[in-house]
């Protein structure tokens, strides 16, 4: 008799407790709790932020950070067995896949800018990229001003296209733009002399050079066209999830974990070819880690 009362009480208690929790959860966290799964968006070739290793497993600096965020979600929702799915995304589909709920957390190489903040939200900036150019060392080119009238490659659907346009307008130079459909194609244009320079984020250029056949032939040179904050992306207007992601990333920054991961991915040999990008932390990134924030690119390039 007593045990039955106790049982009923426990059940009632459990019911109320779960009710209370269900009511307090909404948006992405509720979706994760209800489905028992979270889907991470990953990139296939954004070295070293998010890419596939030799075994086609997603690895990278942002993948590591995302896994730490997932740990916090597990803890918060008391779901130690939370299932983590991954979904490959591209520059074109990453925003729709986040807004339509296919991807919960995009762990790629997405620039945080004002136009995108109309559609999605960003975690505090964890990488700051500088847009520069890769050239063949033998060309002797070391400044953008030497590119007037020359073919310059960049990748379709990236912010570099618009940066080159702005630079041409501002400096009165005229590039002959050629466009690759992805970074590998654009790099091929440089390697096969279809272009004398390839303008892109410095970490991607370093990654492409490191994994090319003759890394010694290429160099990243020239003045930066732009400085852009890169961050993990998720759905907008979801304060609960945003709070959790932001506090998780802030804790990782404060504890020095982010710096450790940076060292691992940017200054040490990484898979698949054990190449070392040798990109020490920039002052812009140091600043962003000192006071974690999700400010858009526009604030980085104010002059």
């Amino acid at each position, binding site marked *: 008799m007593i045990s039955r009362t106790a049982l009923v009480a426990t059940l009632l208690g459990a019911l109320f407790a779960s009710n209370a929790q269900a009511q307090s959860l909404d948006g992405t966290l509720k979706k994760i709790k209800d489905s028992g799964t979270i889907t991470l968006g990953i990139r296939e070739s954004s070295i070293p932020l998010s890419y596939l290793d030799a075994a086609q497993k997603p690895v990278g600096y942002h993948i590591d950070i995302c896994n730490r965020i997932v740990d916090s979600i597990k803890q918060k929702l008391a779901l130690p067995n939370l299932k983590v799915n991954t979904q490959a995304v591209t*520059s*074109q589909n990453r*925003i*729709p896949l986040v*807004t*339509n*709920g296919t991807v919960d957390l995009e762990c790629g190489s997405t620039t945080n800018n004002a*136009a*995108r903040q*109309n*559609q999605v939200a960003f975690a505090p900036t964890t990488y700051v990229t500088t847009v520069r150019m890769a050239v063949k060392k033998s060309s002797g080119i070391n400044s953008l001003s030497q590119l007037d009238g*020359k*073919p310059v490659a960049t990748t*379709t*659907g*990236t*912010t570099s*296209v*618009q*940066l080159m*346009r*702005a630079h041409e*307008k501002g400096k009165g130079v005229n590039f*002959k*733009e*050629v*466009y*690759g*459909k992805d970074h590998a*194609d654009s790099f*091929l244009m440089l390697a*096969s*002399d*279809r272009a*004398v320079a390839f303008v892109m984020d410095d970490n991607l250029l370093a990654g492409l050079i490191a994994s090319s056949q003759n890394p010694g032939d290429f160099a990243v040179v020239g003045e930066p066209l732009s400085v852009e904050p890169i961050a993990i992306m998720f*759905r*907008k*207007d979801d304060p609960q999830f945003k709070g959790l992601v932001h506090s998780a990333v802030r804790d990782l920054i404060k504890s020095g974990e982010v710096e450790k991961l940076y060292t691992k991915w940017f200054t040490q040999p990484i898979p698949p070819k054990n190449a070392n990008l040798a990109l020490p932390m920039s002052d812009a990134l140091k600043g962003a880690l000192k006071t974690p924030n999700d400010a858009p690119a526009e604030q980085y390039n104010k002059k």
Partner: protein
Amino acid sequence: MNYHWNWHVYLDQVSAGDERYLDWIISALGWTIAVSMSAWLIALTLGALIGTLRTAPNRWLVAIGNVWVEGFRNVPLLVQLFLWFFVVPEFLPAELSRWVKQDMPAKEFFTAAICLGLFTSARVAEQVRAGIQSLPRGQKMASLAMGFTLPQTYRYVLLPMAFRIVIPPLTSEFMNIIKNSSVAFAIGLMELTFISRQMIEESGQVFESLLAATLLYTICAFSANRVMTYIEKRTRVPGYIAGAK
């Protein structure tokens, strides 16, 4: 789904430029039409020629036609485009190779038009061959018996009917060439697919950008369909199968 629609985006100015997105779309439409039409011209001319060769009573001519058709229709279009753009110039003499790769004007346009034209010519050739072979054998025999030479037989008896018969499948090819022209974005031709991708990147308005491209492709393909239907009606031979009511 919390997507923020913005139908004014077409009239927004592109960042760091004097144009609006609409101006981009219009110029992209121009490239799409230019590349499709040039390719269609190449495809029709070569397709008619090769298709005819494949029905000729000469082993060697037939063999040339067979190699042409099988070569161009057994390799994926995107692979062919990359072969023309990246590989072929490497086999040219050094000076010419450098010129083709760096200084040739509108190189993306010419590469895309030629590639798409050759690819489609193989398909057109098959249809023309089918058209010729669908004619009763007696027509050719009668023509030869009346003293026409073989070229005259093709010119005045076989081809005029064969072309009328294959207008419906040619209509599909014409529509296909417009849609297939979208692969040209992969070598950087600033046509509709390219511009819609760039617009997605710069404006953040994914669906508006894709919808504009979708709508324009549909309008172009449907216009091609109407033009071909008009030609089909105008050229029909009363009482004969093609275009008969």
